[in-house]
């Protein structure tokens, strides 16, 4: 039987390397998946440009962060980027609406098949990714400032007397809190306000919504504003947590789609749950459990290998396998979403 402190050490280890990172990553995926699922529910196509819309929103956030920093404005212990989010969301929303008016509106008007809109979104993806690279280049960029840690590992060790340290970065805490606030606000909007209900009605039954006098143009516009806001927030939080690199945002597309489909396409609750499912599976399956096992097992049974199910290089495979399993077993997702 391992001692109590050993068990505590093991738990802290898991919190530090699995729970906290997965919670932050899951929040980022949830916000991204919410955007994808809303666009799907209202506009009825899988938007391949969403990853690059996130990159674009983050780019604008970084520009405003620099502008604020240059003029001596910071946000105390919090990252300045949080302040920069406000104008960045506005700018990204305007761009999203412009894209809709110049690209997607045409195909909607002519009632083109959804897949035509998907291909058009590939064109938008190319152009957005180019614009992001025009502005930011292709290098890694870190734009976080303020206090780096909420809880530091050595302090935690001193406080608890354990061997294992627990470190919580400010960006991780902010990610979870901001995501929580945004999700709650979005749910209140969708369930309590007239416009929010109109959006749900339009997503539910387009023809009947039109017969009820709901203005489709307005619904579409509000959808893009919200999608742009969600993309900017998700992208900026991801960039704060890791770093900003244009290409990683395209790669986020897969886990985000997986999250949206797992939860049920067009279902906001599903997107959030799906985000955490994908994130936790990814982190848990690619974590090496060797140290964890060493705390819990007697020394003579200490494991040989790393006790890692999958190398981190294969984390794509995790989202993908979840995706395929859900599609084959329950195509509507956990929360009975639409089937494409």
């Amino acid at each position: 039987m391992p001692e109590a402190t050993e068990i505590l050490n093991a738990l802290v280890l898991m919190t530090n390397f699995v729970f906290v990172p997965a919670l932050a990553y899951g929040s980022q995926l949830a916000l991204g998946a919410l955007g994808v699922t809303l666009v799907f529910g209202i506009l009825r196509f899988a938007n391949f440009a969403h990853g690059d819309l996130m990159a674009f929103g983050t780019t604008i956030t970084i520009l405003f962060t620099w502008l604020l920093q240059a003029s001596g404005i910071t946000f105390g212990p919090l990252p300045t980027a949080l302040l920069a989010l406000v104008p960045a969301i506005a700018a990204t929303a305007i761009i999203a609406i412009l894209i809709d008016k110049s690209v997607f509106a045409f195909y909607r008007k002519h009632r083109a098949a959804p897949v035509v809109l998907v291909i058009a979104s590939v064109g938008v993806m190319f152009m957005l990714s180019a614009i992001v690279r025009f502005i930011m280049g292709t290098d890694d960029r870190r734009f976080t400032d303020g206090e780096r840690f909420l809880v530091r590992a050595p302090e935690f060790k001193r406080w608890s007397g354990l061997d294992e340290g627990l470190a919580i970065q400010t960006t991780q805490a902010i990610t979870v809190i901001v995501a929580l606030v945004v999700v709650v606000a979005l749910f209140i909007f969708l369930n309590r306000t007239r416009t929010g209900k109109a959006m749900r009605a339009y997503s539910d039954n387009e023809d009947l919504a039109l017969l009820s006098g709901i203005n489709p143009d307005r619904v579409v516009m509000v959808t893009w504003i919200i999608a742009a806001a969600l993309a900017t927030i998700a992208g900026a939080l991801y960039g704060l947590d890791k770093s900003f690199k244009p290409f990683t945002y395209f790669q986020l597309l897969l886990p985000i789609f997986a999250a949206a489909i797992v939860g049920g396409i067009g279902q906001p609750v599903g997107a959030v749950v799906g985000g955490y499912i994908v994130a936790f599976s990814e982190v848990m399956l690619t974590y090496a459990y060797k140290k964890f096992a060493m705390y819990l097992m007697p020394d003579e049974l200490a494991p040989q290998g790393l006790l890692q199910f999958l190398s981190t290089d294969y984390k794509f495979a995790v989202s993908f396998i979840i995706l395929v399993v859900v599609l084959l077993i329950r195509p509507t997702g956990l929360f009975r979403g639409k089937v494409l």
Partner: protein
Amino acid sequence: MSAPAIDETAQAERSPAAPPAIVQKKDSAWRAPLAFLAMGAALAAVGMFQSWSVALAILNMSLISAVMAMGLNLQWGYAGLFNAGVMAFTALGGLAAVVVSHPPVMEALTAGGRSLALSAVITIGIVATIIFLTSILKGRVRGFAIFVVVVAGYFLLRPVFSDAVTTIESVNPARTGFIGGLGLPITLSWLVGGIFAAAVAWLIGKVALGLRSDYLAIATLGISEIVIAIIKNEDWLARGVKNVTGLPRPVPYEINLQQEQWFVDLVSRFHAAQLESVGEGTRELLLRQLVIEGASAFVKIAYAGLFTVVLLIILALCVRALNSPWGRMMRAIRDNEEAAAAMGKNITKRHLQVFVLGSAIIGIAGAMMTTLDGQFTPGTYNPLRFTFLIWVMVIVGGSGNNLGAVLGGFLIWFIWVEAEPAGQWIVAQISANMDPNTPLYRHLQDIAAPFRLFVMGLVLLIVMRFSPRGILPEKVRHT
């Protein structure tokens, strides 16, 4: 949900009085030859104003791109399948080039070959057990049994396999560290690349083809990332991101060519007038210069010849397939799946066929590309360049039309290559009067590279909007 859906919007716009079939026939007779003529002229212009070497390089990659586009066109244009995993099949073709042509690394095989073979046996055993279980069990028990077998198999396989991997990868890691290949002629790998791609496509198709279009796109996108991740990380197989370089060639090496008397004679005859015009003293120097240039051009032309043969064979097969009863049925399924199903067509089976065939063609092109490069570089595969660019080719060229796909391959590759110098030129114009020391100036110099992404998106959107059926539209038969 299928390719011609784009044109439905166009059809709706047309007044019912206009006879669409006749209009199409009229312009399609001249359209294709003119378009290809213009393409040839553009390549010639590059040769004259930029350099013939660049023009030939564009030509070679255009030929390969055209083959890829035909493969995707088979899937999308004929059958309406949204394959967003083109990149994976291209890379599998490249892997085939290594596996077929690289000489075997005997040291690695003697060291780790046995455990590798044992791993293969275990894997086959696991798969066989699963197949056996699926045939005798049903429902929940089946799922549970398969789960148990997979988990048990994983723990059985893991130590043997990781032993094999460590042993192989530690054999001279700086130069080999992998098992090598079979040491056969590399042209054979074009066929093998097709087979590799077909095999993987069959597996993917079995799982994913029941899915609706958007899901299929997302699923194939995911699979392609996994395939690339495997090739990048399984160093024992093809060195991963350390690349395999110096693959053998199907054509002569420049350096050998320059030594050949017949080649020197050929060059001096070809450039006789130019050689006459210079003095005795510089003639020798000029000839050497011309031989070096000529050797490089000769190699590229030799590649172009090989690729053209493959292109023409595949084109002929695709055209025949399209006009056969099989092709008509494919399009009938694409245009109205429900009606086709009601008529007793086995849609999933047909889709699987066309998916495997299209992927095989992409695999062949992938092997050709690695052959041309002479090296396999898994780190360079990314979906924008290797999946979505091919999509732009098919949509812009004209989905459902084989010549359209070929033209799209040529045109889009041409734009992709030439967009960068165009971007540089634009940047040069903008920053002409700027101080080179300002950050803005330095920033502007980085813009030229992503400029091609911008142009690609723009071309795709403009063609979709104003010519939704592409440059060479699918011929609609009214019979």
